[in-house]
């Protein structure tokens, strides 16, 4: 279904990438630090318990002492309390961090999507964008928040335990630690393969999202061409691929964890064998309590090792998600305002309207050439001067570049060479929003937002009164059909306006553009599906208030 290939991302764990991602999570850094601290304390508690057990066995059982029990109980209870509050704390923090990071990354990504230029949408299928915005961001929040929990707890636990063991009995400690490299090797071997399968899963997932999107958008066409079955078959291939790679990943994971557990048991056996013989040897170098502590340490230390391996695998498998999200966040719009322009006129989200110069609407193409990123040359050394108030009609064959010219005027694209001037000034010296705020553009296949007709027209200018809206509709001869609808102006248009006919959508988007009182008005085949015969010269001229320069390709 999808042609655009998912980029192939690097295979190794890329620390720089995660640092870049974590930089995007700045408002949540304080949570992450707090989680780290909590987890370190929690790991410390976990290491203290075996020591307390050792003390209890050696003092109260082996030596049979009875004094100091209260003090021991207090210390034990205190450690328990500390650990409990740590667990409570990190659960809270982690939940907050996960949800917060999700929302924050989505917000950033959505903002970026709003900023990106036409060319991005020309090249990127909707399905890919949707899977970046939903499943990928969700995955990142989860991996980062819970990954840090596990990483910090496991790291601190291994470190503190290793130190404790070395202090208690260096020889037995080395025995336990000697199994660690074997586990590390096994972990790396498995995780590499698990990761490869996960990558395949995620890649297929975004193709499936794409197929969903195409299936829904193209439903009507598929029916008219009787392609339902072919579409289903193609979809079945995709889901089949997804199932196969998911199962491969699951089987590998299922093999990996028992292997780690077995290796852990071997270490425990070694400790028991070695320590046991020492306990009963003549010298009695190792006390029963120490042995008990060691058994606890030996069984305990392998879980964090496999959980570190799991985190790295998680990080690696989420790396694809991270790369995709970071690549979206770092995609620079091809059309952007220079810092000087932003400084003076503000950006799209914080415009400094007070600095905006008035617009007359003179347009000049000065030796403009343009080609799309695909390399297709559309305009070559094109010159044109339009005075404010003039109407320009663009006539040409299908595909001759009419829409491109108006897209350049609107600064949806910029010339690859040459200059476009508005009111005599290179439009790159003004902000994009300044131009587009003074622009009325009616597309051939207009998009309406779900909501009522009235709301859709008000998108043109938010402070328009109902009266103005109705006047605009009368001006474009849309009122007749609107009033015939059951709820008139308050009729819901459906998602994308699909409850209306193409011609009706065109008229509404026409009214929407008109109400903004634009200085430059562009009609791109805007009335191709509209009967303009009752007012042959077109609606624009029937409202003398709106007499901006029009570009009307035919």
């Amino acid at each position: 279904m999808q042609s655009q290939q998912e980029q192939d991302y690097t295979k190794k764990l890329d620390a720089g990438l995660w640092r870049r991602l974590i930089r995007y999570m700045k408002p949540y850094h304080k949570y992450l630090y707090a989680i780290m601290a909590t987890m370190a304390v929690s790991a410390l508690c976990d290491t203290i318990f075996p020591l307390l057990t050792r003390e209890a066995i050696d003092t109260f059982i082996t030596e049979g002492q009875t004094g100091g029990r209260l003090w021991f109980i207090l210390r034990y209870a205190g450690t328990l309390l500390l650990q409990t509050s740590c667990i409570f704390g990190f659960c809270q923090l982690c939940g907050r961090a996960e949800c917060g990071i999700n929302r924050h990354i989505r917000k950033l990504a959505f903002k970026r999507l709003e900023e990106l230029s036409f060319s991005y949408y020309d090249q990127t299928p909707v399905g890919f964008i949707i899977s970046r915005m939903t499943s990928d961001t969700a995955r990142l929040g989860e991996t980062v928040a819970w990954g840090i929990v596990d990483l910090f707890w496991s790291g601190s636990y291994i470190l503190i335990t290793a130190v404790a063991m070395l202090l208690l009995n260096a020889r037995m400690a080395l025995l336990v630690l000697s199994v660690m490299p074997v586990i590390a090797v096994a972990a790396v071997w498995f995780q590499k393969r698990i990761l490869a399968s996960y990558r395949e899963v995620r890649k297929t997932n975004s193709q499936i999202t794409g197929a969903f999107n195409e299936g829904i958008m193209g439903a009507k066409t598929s029916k008219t061409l009787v392609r339902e079955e072919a579409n289903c078959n193609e979809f079945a291939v995709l889901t089949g691929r997804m199932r196969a790679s998911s199962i491969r990943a699951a089987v590998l994971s299922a093999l990996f964890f028992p292997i780690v557990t077995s290796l852990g048991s071997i270490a425990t056996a070694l400790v028991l064998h070695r320590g046991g013989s020492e306990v009963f040897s003549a010298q009695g170098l190792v006390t029963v309590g120490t042995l008990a502590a060691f058994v606890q340490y030996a069984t305990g230390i392998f879980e964090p090792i496999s959980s570190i391996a799991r985190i790295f695998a998680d990080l690696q498998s989420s790396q694809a998600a991270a790369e995709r999200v970071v690549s979206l966040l770092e995609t620079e719009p091809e059309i952007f305002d220079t810092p000087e322009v932003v400084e003076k006129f503000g950006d799209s989200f914080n415009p400094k309207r007070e600095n905006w110069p008035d617009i007359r609407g003179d347009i000049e193409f000065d030796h403009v050439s343009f080609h799309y990123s695909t390399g297709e040359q559309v305009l070559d050394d094109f010159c044109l001067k339009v005075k404010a108030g003039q109407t320009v009609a663009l006539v040409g064959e299908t595909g001759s570049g009419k829409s491109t010219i108006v897209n350049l005027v609107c600064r949806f694209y910029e010339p690859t060479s040459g200059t476009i001037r508005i009111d005599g000034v290179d439009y790159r010296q003004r902000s994009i929003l300044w131009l587009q705020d003074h622009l009325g553009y009616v597309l051939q296949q207009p998009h309406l937002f779900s909501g009522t007709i009235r709301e859709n027209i008000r998108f043109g200018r938010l402070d328009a009164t109902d009266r103005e809206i109705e006047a605009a509709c009368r001006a474009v001869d849309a009122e007749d059909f609107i009033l015939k609808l059951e709820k008139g102006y308050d009729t819901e248009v459906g998602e994308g306006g699909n409850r209306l006919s193409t011609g009706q959508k065109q008229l509404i988007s026409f009214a929407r553009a008109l109400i903004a009182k634009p200085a430059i008005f562009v009609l791109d085949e805007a009335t191709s599906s509209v009967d303009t015969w009752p007012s042959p010269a077109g609606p624009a001229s029937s409202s003398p208030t709106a007499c901006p320069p029009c570009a009307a390709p035919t």
Partner: protein
Amino acid sequence: MVAMKRLYEVLDAPVEQDTPGAGEADLYKPIEFRHVAFGYDGQPVLSDVSFTVQPGQTVAILGATGSGKSTMMNLLQRLYDAKEGEILIGGRDIKTIEKKYLRSRVGYVLQEPFLYSRTIRENLAITDAHSDGFITQFKEGYDTMVGERGVTLSGGQKQRVAIARTLLRDNDILILDDSLSAVDTETDRAIRDALVEGRGNGSRVPTTFIISHRLTTLADADLILVLEDGKIAQQGTHEELIHQSGLYQKVYRIQAALEDELNSEIA
């Protein structure tokens, strides 16, 4: 549980079904609309539509925005079924014809065509419909990728690929729903000429329905239907209709006046 409910909302939505016993039939037969009525959610769109057309003829439909033109064509491909009245092909109610079969024989070029995101060749399979010229202009010709929903093509180019895609099939009936609105008049004529070319040399021309606002596109048709508010206000040939007072005459005068104006300016 919530997820399951939501999934069942999709799974349990009624799917398209054929009436039991529906089968295949020769569709190259006279088509008759008999008192057909239709509405969406209680909003009437078409009422009492009746006309007959012979196989191989061209029917042109003219009407204001929202007058029910596209709806009428949707009924013919059974994307919806008529609420009242019946549509007969060769005397047989189309409700008794299998939907899949019907759609495979009725070529329908939608007003807003959807192209699949793959190459032009895959969208078409072969060349036709005067698209060859522009297709070979692309660096990769027929193997040019059409972006998702056809974004790398212009509106008119998309329409031409969509027309070509439909013409490739062996159609008994062909519907062009405002499909030529975004192509220039010259290409419009060339495509229509290509459609009727077969008539002279005896090969079979599908029964064709054309929706358009351009009278030049409509004038040659064997039958012109003028729709107003979901009803057929007038029907006849170009010659008949320009002499009747009504929407057709009005539009004709306006468009002719525009043309005269242009011609006198050129002269």
